[in-house]
């Protein structure tokens, strides 16, 4: 199942980047992407509209470690690049894939307001997740969103046994809650 997510992510990455300025190694060359093994994963495609934003939740995965092996073409050789990342002890990575499209809004979507909350009420902020790109997956920008359509993954570091996760955002005039697991 997660392979499908990863492929979707790769496809999304290609669609979203503007040009030759895109990371389309997979398009042209046999880049090997060993997508992270997921202890738990799921694909969903649920859309919400709130305060002029269209928010589509497209899936998640939870695991304590993430690995990727990719291949990069150089001028005269092929190099491999291995990447792995392990969560702190007792923690797990919760990667969530979203599509966020501004339809008619004057509100900026701020990442520090997009909270992941578990059944115990613990709140998590999006972590510094630039490593998502190293996993060969499309990452949503780390800067606040105020324009256009953006699709990709974000990551939270949550308690390893966290359940009942919901993604929450409070707009100026309404609140949004998306059930993750």
């Amino acid at each position: 199942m997660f392979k499908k997510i990863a492929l979707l992510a790769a496809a999304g990455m290609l669609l979203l980047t503007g040009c030759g300025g895109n990371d389309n190694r997979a398009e042209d060359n046999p880049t090997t992407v060993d997508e992270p093994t997921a202890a738990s994963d799921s694909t969903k495609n649920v859309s919400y509209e709130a305060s002029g934003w269209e928010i589509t939740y497209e899936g998640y995965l939870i695991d304590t470690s993430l690995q990727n092996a990719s291949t990069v073409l150089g001028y005269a050789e092929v190099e491999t690049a291995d990447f792995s990342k392990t969560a702190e002890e007792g923690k797990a990575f919760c990667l969530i894939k979203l599509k966020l499209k501004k339809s008619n809004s004057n509100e900026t979507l701020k990442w520090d307001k997009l909270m992941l909350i578990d059944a115990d009420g613990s709140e998590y902020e999006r972590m510094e997740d630039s490593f998502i790109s190293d996993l060969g997956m499309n990452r949503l920008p780390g800067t606040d969103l105020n324009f256009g359509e953006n699709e990709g993954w974000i990551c939270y570091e949550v308690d390893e046994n966290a359940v009942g996760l919901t993604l929450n955002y409070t707009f100026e005039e309404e609140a949004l809650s998306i059930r993750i697991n």
Partner: protein
Amino acid sequence: MKNKKNIIWILVLCLAVAALAVGLNWSKLFKDTEDDAPTDTNDTAARTEAEYEDYLASQTEVDSNLQKELENGYTIDDPMVVVNPYKNSPLTAMVIFTTEETTSVKCVVKGKDNKNNIEVEFDESKSHMLPIYGLYLGDTTEVELTLDDGTTKVLQIQTESIDTVLADAEVTAYEEGQVNSNELTFVSIESGDNGQYGAVAYDNAGDIRWLLKTPEGTVIPLKRLANGNIMIPTGRIIKTYYNSSGLIELDLCGKIYHDYLVEGGEHHDFYELANGNILLCGNASDFSTVEDRIVEIDRTTGEIVYDLDLAELIDPSDGGSINRSDHDWAHTNGLDYDEETDTLILSCRHLDAVLGIDMSDKQLKWILGDPEGWTNADESLFFTPINTENGFEWQFAQHNAQFLEDGDIILFDNGAGRTKTSKEDEKVTGDDVYSRAVRYELDYENMTIEQVWEYGKDLGKEWYSPYISGMSYLGTDTYWITSGANRYDAVNDTYDNPPYVTGDLVKKSYHNQVIEDQLVYELTIPALSYRSIRMSLYPSDYTFDLEAEGDYIGTLGAVNTTDNPSVNMEDAKSVDFELTTIKKTYDRFIVSGTWASTGEDAVLVLVDEEGNMTSFSLTSMTATEDSEMFSVWITEESVEQGHSYDIYLYNNGTLYDTKQYVRYYVNTQSSDIGLGAKYALYDNIARSYQLISSGSLTSDQITTDITTEESAPIKTANIEAQITNELENGGYTFESAMVIQDPFNVRL
């Protein structure tokens, strides 16, 4: 009678809408039928259609969203700021607002000190769409905007931090006052960023002020065009390691204006001619040999209007270079043109020579290089060194040879080996290696050559770059030099590492400004650089063109077929290896993956509705002990149009069924179809095509301004959603039917 006529009308309209939908993306518009329909008599398992991608369509959506923001009435007091609007140029932003009065806007992108401010004045307008360049990486940059009436607004624009070795560059020499403060160092990156950012611009303090995300993180090379845009290779590799499908023209925002597709691809260098056409380094169309072809493409049509096969001028076995191979015997890595003498100047690394060629007559005029090892070239083509008492050396494995106005030639002499095969015992190796930048004065009548300047020899191995690199002349005895591939092997304590040596090497590139013999500026980057150039972020008279749509120009041409394997389709196995890519893009259909090994019999097999096979050879990309990567691509000219093809791979005697299919639309260039948009209607059940044309409607029923016969369906999710919405919710009747002209913007 009237009812019957109405029914016919409804059918025609439905057919037209359906046909248009097919032109866009039948599978998405009619998801229910797509999910279970495509089966054939030989395969009862469900097949899925290969993914389709058109990145320029995504760009058009960005333009559309920017336009919407422009209409939202933002003011100078509270403007809209979109950072990295095209998602590939993270240190740019678009500032959007309107003013009641027409005004120009002065903009200062503040540097960490005033010497690194970036200033530009945008044209007069009431609607302001201002591209801001020169933001700092992972930091807040102050941007000051001033209107004609003195109104000033200061913005604080934040960019995201990016983990890149390119940020670790250092200025290692700097004599202030000797370096142009209005220019930055634009570097074409060869490798160093794990395949992400292929071009970068540093200010004189060594801070990154512009960064471009590119395929493979490689750009070979970047140049500014006469209209102010830049041009780089597409980065869509069609032949390892760096042969791109062609070139793209873009601005520093990352917006692409043209994507040029070139038969045989593009590598190493290109040159914009005075008429706007592009001269470029290419390959034989079937890649039987590489880097021995020069083509000129028409800037408007992409048509190849000049084609030079170097094998017509030079015996491919000649030259005696220790670096040559039969497949890559010339390795043309630099291209320049002197309009006054109609001379094409080619730097050929694997000939250790620069060739002067009469472009119109396709005649070899001279050879700049050591005559040693040449056996089939006329002796009169070579220069004789003079005044050698001040030092003279021939160049070896050189790059980036260029004509200067006075007829002199400058080049980067990489110096790989510094000998020919006939004197291989004199090869320069180990601690003795060196590179240099050199200027030769040439007497073309008497065929003499004098070395009038050099730089870098004394720097020895620590400045040595056996490949890539380049140089340019900034005027008044001032040179800009890139020693791009200095690689140190700490284990063996050596800098003498040819391109094929891999491993844990310390990579550096040096970017030097030298006045006469004096180093006045040096930027050191912990990554390999193909070349670097000096230029301003904003070209003169710059205007951002929001309305211009990116387009594809030209074609990659047909890919040769090969013998079909002798197999029974029923014997096909499921794929038991990794398929990385099965994708159709505007220019190609691509399959790649990794399996244990690529056999000599390996082919891509496409099977049409009748069971007819068409096969194409696979390319092995790279191999390890237990796996091998393969790739294959074809173009629409490579297969018969109007068919759906099941996708198989054959390798080491086994046929694999990918369970996917790819569709090729009917070629709509036929002249007997009539005026109007034309699409192929694909029947998912019967898996067959029927050609549909709006020309089947009479001209008073649907009008169009379409004037050419060329069209190609372009997928746009937004448009198909709108059509679906109109179909389901519009409530249109026969009497007031919805007619959408050119709904998919097929750019006829």
